[in-house]
């Protein structure tokens, strides 16, 4: 029977069926971060247990670290406690830590692909809902809770009920100024924030095949915002070219052997999905959100809809007015959604030779030390600084504010992150989600702007 990418990877990890559609699955890669990593390892030790396979576990500090230039660790006292705790517990447990100050530190979902830890056909979990990002490489990757983290540490397995499958096919070609972020926001607007609940989503179609690996990571990152904790793209030549030579990728004969398996993973012709949806991206405009759910996305040249009065009130917007022209206070370019080199290039391309509006505080927070180094090697940091952006250190920063970096109450922020929830960037903060290029355009204009007006 023809199988889907999801089915093939799931089936390859079943240790034992537990009945009722639930399987005991093997975890190939377990990622820990500073928000819960130390506590989980300590809890494991309290139970008298050790990580079953510490070599399959990788930790980094990202959520609570400061993004201020010159930082050395946690952003404040309790953040420092978490970072120190992670250092201590990973050392005791024999788990590799990509620490602040090292060349490999960064946002967990940026570094796992970047270092070649995430590979096609691997099963990846992390106590973070945006673990779905890693599915861009053809991995089966999903977020888990605190109790499940301890379970994975103790047993290297996880109990999961097999979800339904959904295929989202993006056809056509993107216009200039339109990116993967716009594709996925448009899809969420179409199916709703619960549209993918209970499903593993495969992104397919000509427009997905045409995306580079970093753009695919952006696409998969927002799977959880459409309700799906798993999003995947079939591995292809783009994936293979991306992974070749990465620090944790196989080499030599093992690499060739891996390629042989990876090439069998794509969904077979005629494979059945529980749900199939198609979206033509040819006429797609840059997207931006107006409300407090990622499903509240519209074209940047569109009008604010007459819906969700509480959301409009929170956001300080009036129905029927164009969203463009809305005054902006902050701009954040960063997060596990959009902080990779291609994102920074797109934003720098808009910012080059221009100036951030005087009333706007604009930040660029690269996703990892690797991204930061690569961006600096091509002078992007100078482009941003010359334009009036702050060039900061890698971490989650303003996406979630766990490090105390917040948007002020009532202030409006155009953000390349993934959640515009009430209070997400700080109590009372108003978040508009958009692509890095759109965010850069908004920083320059000092208001919500159409990036296409800034392109040559």
């Amino acid at each position, binding site marked *: 029977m023809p199988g889907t990418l999801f089915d093939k990877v799931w089936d390859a990890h079943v*240790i*034992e069926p*537990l*009945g*009722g*559609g639930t399987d*005991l699955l*093997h975890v190939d890669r377990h990622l820990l971060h500073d*928000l819960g990593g130390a506590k989980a390892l300590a809890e494991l030790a309290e*139970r008298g247990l050790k990580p*079953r396979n510490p070599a399959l576990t990788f930790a980094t500090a990202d*959520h*609570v670290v400061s993004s201020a230039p010159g930082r050395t660790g946690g952003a404040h006292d*309790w953040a420092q406690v*978490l970072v120190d705790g992670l250092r201590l517990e990973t050392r005791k447990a024999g788990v590799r830590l990509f620490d602040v100050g090292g060349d490999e530190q960064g946002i967990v979902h940026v570094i796992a692909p970047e270092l070649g830890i995430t*590979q096609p*056909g*691997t099963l990846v979990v992390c*106590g*973070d*809902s945006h673990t779905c990002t890693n599915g861009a490489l053809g991995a089966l990757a*999903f*977020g*888990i*809770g*605190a*109790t*499940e983290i*301890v*379970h994975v540490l*103790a*047993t*290297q*397995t996880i*109990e999961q*009920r097999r*979800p339904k499958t959904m295929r989202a096919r993006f056809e056509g070609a993107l216009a200039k100024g339109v990116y993967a972020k716009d594709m996925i926001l448009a899809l969420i607007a179409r199916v709703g*924030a*619960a549209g993918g*609940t*209970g499903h593993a989503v495969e992104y397919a179609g000509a427009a997905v095949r045409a995306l580079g690996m970093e753009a695919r990571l952006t696409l998969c990152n927002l799977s*959880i*915002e459409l*309700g799906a*904790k798993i999003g995947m793209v079939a591995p292809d030549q783009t994936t293979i070219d991306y992974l070749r030579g990465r620090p944790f990728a*196989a080499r030599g004969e*093992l690499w060739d*052997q*891996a390629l042989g*398996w990876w090439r069998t993973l794509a969904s077979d012709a005629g494979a059945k999905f529980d749900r199939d949806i198609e979206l033509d991206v040819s006429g797609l405009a840059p997207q931006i959100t107006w409300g407090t*759910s990622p*499903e509240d996305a519209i074209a940047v040249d569109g009008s604010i809809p007459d819906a969700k009065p509480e959301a409009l009130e929170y956001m300080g917007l009036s129905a029927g007015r164009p969203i463009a022209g809305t005054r902006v206070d902050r701009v954040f370019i960063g997060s596990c959604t959009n902080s990779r080199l291609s994102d920074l290039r797109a934003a720098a391309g808009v910012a080059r030779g221009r100036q951030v509006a005087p009333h706007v505080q604009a930040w660029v927070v690269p996703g990892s030390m690797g991204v930061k180094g690569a961006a600096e090697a091509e002078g992007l940091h100078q482009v941003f600084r010359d334009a009036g952006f702050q060039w900061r250190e890698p971490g989650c920063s303003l996406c*979630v*504010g*766990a490090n105390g970096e917040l948007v002020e109450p009532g202030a409006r922020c155009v953000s390349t992150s993934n*959640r515009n*929830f*009430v*209070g997400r960037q700080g*109590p009372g903060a108003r978040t508009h989600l958009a692509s890095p290029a759109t965010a850069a355009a908004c920083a320059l204009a000092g208001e919500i702007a159409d990036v296409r007006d800034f392109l040559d």
Partner: protein
Amino acid sequence: MERFTVLRSTAAALPWSNVDTDMIIRVERCVRTPRAEMGRWAFEMTRFDGEGRDDPAFPLNQDKFGGAQTLVAGENFGCGSSREMAVWAIAGMGFRCVVAPSFGDIFYNNCFQNGVLAIRLAKPAVEGLLRTLAAASAPLELTVDLPAQTLTAPDGETYAFDIDPLRKKALLEGLDAIGVTLARERAIAAWQAADRARRPWVWT
């Protein structure tokens, strides 16, 4: 884990859709607040007014919902962040059962790790319950019978609900999932040994 069998209790209604886990518990509380105190900070952004007093506009602050152990909510409840503290916060408010048309997938899993029963019920049924609870002038009781997999509304109407048999067993018996899986060590070791031969590149 605390066992769950039959729960007869006052029900509370939160008639909102897409309640995300950031809204349920702020990220700062996730790491700074002991689990036992998490309930105090549940929904803090909407539950309290500027002075830290209960905001009467927040549905769960109504007297008639006092002491409720069952929460009825709108669709996609618990979407967003994987933070398990959202379940701890809700449990800390006293809830042992949450009923909604749909849940965030990770939140749903997390409920069962903490002895909280999450029940998916058809949207019209949930909307009916929400209306009844909102209109009530006094506390109303719901009965949740896990062995029978039924929920009985205040008007006596009974709804059947689905639950994964493994989750049901774990709740009924208060099983510890880690202990159960540790007992499967032989199968795990055998699988890993075979996989090292099958996919050696994963193990380097």
